[in-house]
C-alpha cells in the first residue's frame, strides 16, 4: 500500500514557517491548510482486470465548509457508483448505477470494497470527505480535510505502507482555469527515513471552477410550494456560447420525483414511479438522480412532484431536502484538463461529458420542501364517521327504495 499526502496552503508566506523537516518525519503546524491523503492499493484479484466493474464511492459532508481546492466536485452524502465509464459503452452514454444515502454507512462501502476497511478504521465522516475510485485492479482512496489552526500534523511512514510521498505547497497563482503550486516534495525510504526533499512546482488546469458566493446564479424555490415544487434558475445573465452548455444536476430523496414525460431530463436514474406514495416504494429505492439541460438567456424552471408521505401522530409537515447543482460545461479543447495531478474524473455526472470539459459551478444549493402528512390520531374518527355515513345512507336509501309510497 502506498500513500501520498498533498498539502496546499492558500497563504504563500507562512508555508516554510509551518514546516519542520526531521530525519524520518515532517511536522507541520496547522494553519487552515487543505490536505489530500491518497492511498493506493493493488487488489488481490485473479480475474482479468478488464472484467472488473469500475466503482466509485464518494462521501461529502453536508455541512457547508470551505471548499478544499484539491477536491473534485462531489455530491453531498454517500454515493456509490458502479458500472462502466464512457469508453466501454459507445461514445455517448455512460452506464452506471448510483446508490445514494444521506448518512455515512461504512457497511455500504465494505460491501463493495472490503480492502479499504483498514484505511477507513480511523476515518471521521464529520471531518473529512472521501473519494474512492477503482479502476482495474487498483483502488485509490482519497481523503480530503482541512487542518485546524495550531494543531500539529506529523507525517511519517507506518507499518502498513510500502511507500510514502508528501508534498507541501502554497498557491503561487490561480486564475479562472490555471493553478500554479510551489513547494517541497519529500520521499520516504522503506526503512522509514526521509530519502530526500526537493523544491517542486506544479501547474495544472482545473476541471471544476467555483464562483464566489456573491456571484452565484439566482435560484429560487417558487412560492407557494404545494405538492409540485418548482425551482426557477435564472440564466438571463448568460449568453449562448457555442462551446458551452448549461445543466442542473439533482439528487432527489424518495419523497420527490421527476415526471420524465413532463419535463424530459437528460437522464433520470433510480426511482421513476409516478404514482406510489413514499412509503410504498420498494425498500431498496433510495431516490433518484437526474440532470436537466438549461437554456441560457431565460429563466428556466424545473418541475418536481412530491409523493404522499407516511401519516404521523399529530398535525405535521415533513421536510424533504435535495441538492441542486447548476453548472456550465464548456469544451476546453485541451487535453491537459484530464491531467490534473490530484484527481481524475470518474463516474457521476462528469461521466456524461467529454474528457476536455471544464465545469463552472454557478450555484450549489440544498433546497428544502415541506410535505404535509396525514394525522394518524384522526384514524378512529375517520373510521367511525365513514362507517356511520355508509350505514345511515344505506338505511335512508333502502327506505326510499322500498317503503310504500
Amino acid at each position, binding site marked *: 500500500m502506498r500513500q501520498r499526502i498533498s498539502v496546499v496552503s492558500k497563504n504563500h508566506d507562512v508555508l516554510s514557517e509551518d514546516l519542520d523537516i526531521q530525519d524520518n518525519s515532517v511536522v507541520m503546524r496547522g494553519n487552515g491548510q487543505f490536505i489530500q491523503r491518497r492511498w493506493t492499493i493493488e487488489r488481490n484479484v485473479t480475474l482479468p482486470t478488464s472484467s472488473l466493474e469500475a466503482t466509485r464511492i464518494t462521501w461529502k459532508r453536508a455541512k457547508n465548509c470551505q471548499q478544499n481546492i484539491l477536491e473534485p466536485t462531489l455530491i453531498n452524502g454517500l454515493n456509490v457508483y458502479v458500472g462502466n465509464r464512457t469508453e466501454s459503452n459507445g461514445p455517448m452514454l455512460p452506464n452506471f448505477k448510483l446508490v445514494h444515502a444521506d448518512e455515512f454507512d461504512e457497511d455500504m462501502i465494505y460491501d463493495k470494497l472490503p480492502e479499504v476497511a483498514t484505511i477507513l478504521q480511523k476515518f471521521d465522516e464529520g471531518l473529512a470527505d472521501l473519494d474512492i475510485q477503482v479502476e482495474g485492479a487498483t483502488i485509490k482512496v482519497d481523503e480530503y480535510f482541512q487542518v485546524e489552526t495550531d494543531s500539529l500534523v506529523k507525517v511519517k511512514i507506518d507499518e502498513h505502507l510500502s511507500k510514502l510521498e508528501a508534498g507541501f505547497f502554497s498557491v503561487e497563482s490561480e486564475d479562472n482555469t490555471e493553478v500554479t503550486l510551489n513547494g517541497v516534495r519529500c520521499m520516504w525510504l522503506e526503512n522509514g527515513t526521509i530519502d530526500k526533499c526537493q523544491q517542486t512546482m506544479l501547474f495544472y488546469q482545473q476541471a471544476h471552477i467555483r464562483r464566489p458566493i456573491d456571484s452565484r446564479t439566482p435560484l429560487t424555490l417558487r412560492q407557494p410550494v*404545494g405538492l409540485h415544487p418548482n425551482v426557477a434558475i435564472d440564466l438571463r445573465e448568460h449568453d449562448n456560447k457555442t462551446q458551452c452548455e448549461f445543466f442542473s444536476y439533482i439528487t432527489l430523496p424518495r419523497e420527490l420525483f421527476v415526471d420524465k414525460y413532463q419535463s424530459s431530463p437528460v437522464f433520470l436514474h433510480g426511482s421513476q414511479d409516478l404514482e406510489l406514495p413514499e412509503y410504498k416504494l420498494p425498500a431498496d429505492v433510495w431516490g433518484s438522480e437526474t440532470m436537466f439541460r438549461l437554456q441560457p438567456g431565460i429563466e428556466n424552471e424545473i418541475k418536481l412532484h412530491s409523493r*404522499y408521505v407516511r401519516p404521523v401522530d399529530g398535525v405535521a409537515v415533513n421536510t424533504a431536502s435535495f441538492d441542486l447543482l447548476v453548472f456550465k460545461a464548456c469544451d476546453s479543447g485541451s487535453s491537459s484538463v484530464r491531467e490534473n495531478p490530484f484527481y481524475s474524473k470518474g463516474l457521476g455526472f462528469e461521466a456524461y461529458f467529454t474528457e476536455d470539459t471544464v465545469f463552472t459551478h454557478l450555484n450549489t444549493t440544498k433546497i428544502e420542501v415541506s410535505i*404535509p402528512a396525514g394525522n394518524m390520531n*384522526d384514524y378512529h374518527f*375517520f373510521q367511525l364517521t365513514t362507517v356511520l*355515513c*355508509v350505514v345511515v345512507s344505506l338505511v335512508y*336509501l333502502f327506505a326510499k327504495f322500498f317503503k310504500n*309510497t
Partner: protein
Amino acid sequence: MELSTIALFLGSFTLRIGFFLYGIYQDAHFEVKYTDIDYFVFNDAAKYAYYLQSPFLRDTYRYTPLLSWLLVPNHYFKWIHFGKMIFIGFDLLTGILIVVLLDCTSERRRKLLASLWLLNFMVITISTRGNAESVVCCLVVLTMYFLKIDNFVAAGIAYGTSIHFKLYPVMYCLPIAVFIYQTRSRSSSWFKNLIKIGISTATTAAALTFWMYKLYGYEYLDNAYLYHFYRTDHRHNFSLWNMLLYLDSATLKQSSWPKLAFVPQAAVTIALSFLLDNTASLSDLMSILFFQTFTFVAYNKVCTSQYFIWYLTFLPFYLQDTQISRKKGLFMLFLWVASQAFWLSQAYLLEFKGKNVFFNIFVASVSFFISNIWILGQMVEDHRIRNHSLKVKKSE
C-alpha cells in the same frame, strides 16, 4: 329535422370547436396546460402503437389498447390535438342519441333536456381537454338506442364493447336483464331477446379482451383490469373513503376497509334494479341506470370530476318526467355544487399551497357524500311516486 334542432347541434358543435381551439391556444401560451394529463398518456401510448409496439410501454397507461389505437392518427398526421376531435365526435354522437332517445311530448322540452348534455360546459370541457369518457358514454347510450329499435344483438355488441373499454358499465347488466324480463307481458320473445343480448355482450367483451390479451399478454390484464383491484387510492379525491384509505395504506396491519368498500356500493346498485316493474319503459330503465351510476360514483373508493360525466349522460331521461319543483331542484343542484366547491377549495390549499388540510378534506368529502345521498333519495322517491301515480291513472 326541425330548424331549432339543427341550430342546437350547430351551436353545440361550434362551442366544442371554440373550446378545442382555445385549448390549443392555452397550451401554446400558458404555463398551465388546458389539455388533460391523461391525454398525454394516451398520446404517448398511441405513439408506441403507431410504431407497432405495446402501448403499455408508457408508464401509467392503464386502458384498453383500443384507446391508444384510436389516437394513432395523432402520429400519422403529426398533430397531437387530432384525437380530441375523435372524442368530440363521440361526445356529439352521444348528444344526438340522447335527442333521439328522449321521449318528450314537447319539442321544446326535448331540446332543453338534450342541452343538459350538448351545451353542458362540464361535458364540453372534459371532451375537449382530451378525456376519453365520451367514448364509453357513447357506447352505453348506443346500447340504449339498439334496445329501443329492438336490435338486441347490436345492443349486446355496443354494450360488450363498453365493458371492455371501462369495467363499470358491467353493473348495468342486471337492470337491463330485469327490464327485458319485465317486458314479458308485452313481448312473447323476451327470453329469446335476453339470450341474444346476453350472448352477444359476453362474446363481444370476451373476444375483445382475449384479442388484446393475445397481443399484449399479462401486461394488458394487469394494467387494464387487475391494477384497479390492488391499487392504493391514497391521493386526495372526492371519495368518502379516501382519507381512511390513505391512513390505512400506511399502517403495517392493514384493515379490511379497502376490500369491504364495494359492499355497500354493490348492495345499493343491485337493489335499484328491482325498482323496475312490468310497466317499465326504456326511459324508466335509463332513469334506473342514472341512479345506479350516481350511487356507484358516490360510494366509490375513488371519485374524480370526470366520473360525473358517466351519470350526466342519463340525467335528461330522469328529468323528462320529474315532478320535483323547480325550487327544490335548484336547491339540490346548489347542494351538489356547493359541497363540491368546498372540497375543491380545500384540495387547492393542499395541492398548491402545501397546507396540511387533510382533516378539512375529509369533512368536505363527508359533506359531498351526504349531499349526494340525500339528492339520490329525493330523486328515487320522486321517480317512484310518479310511476305509482301513472299506474293509478292507468287502472282508473
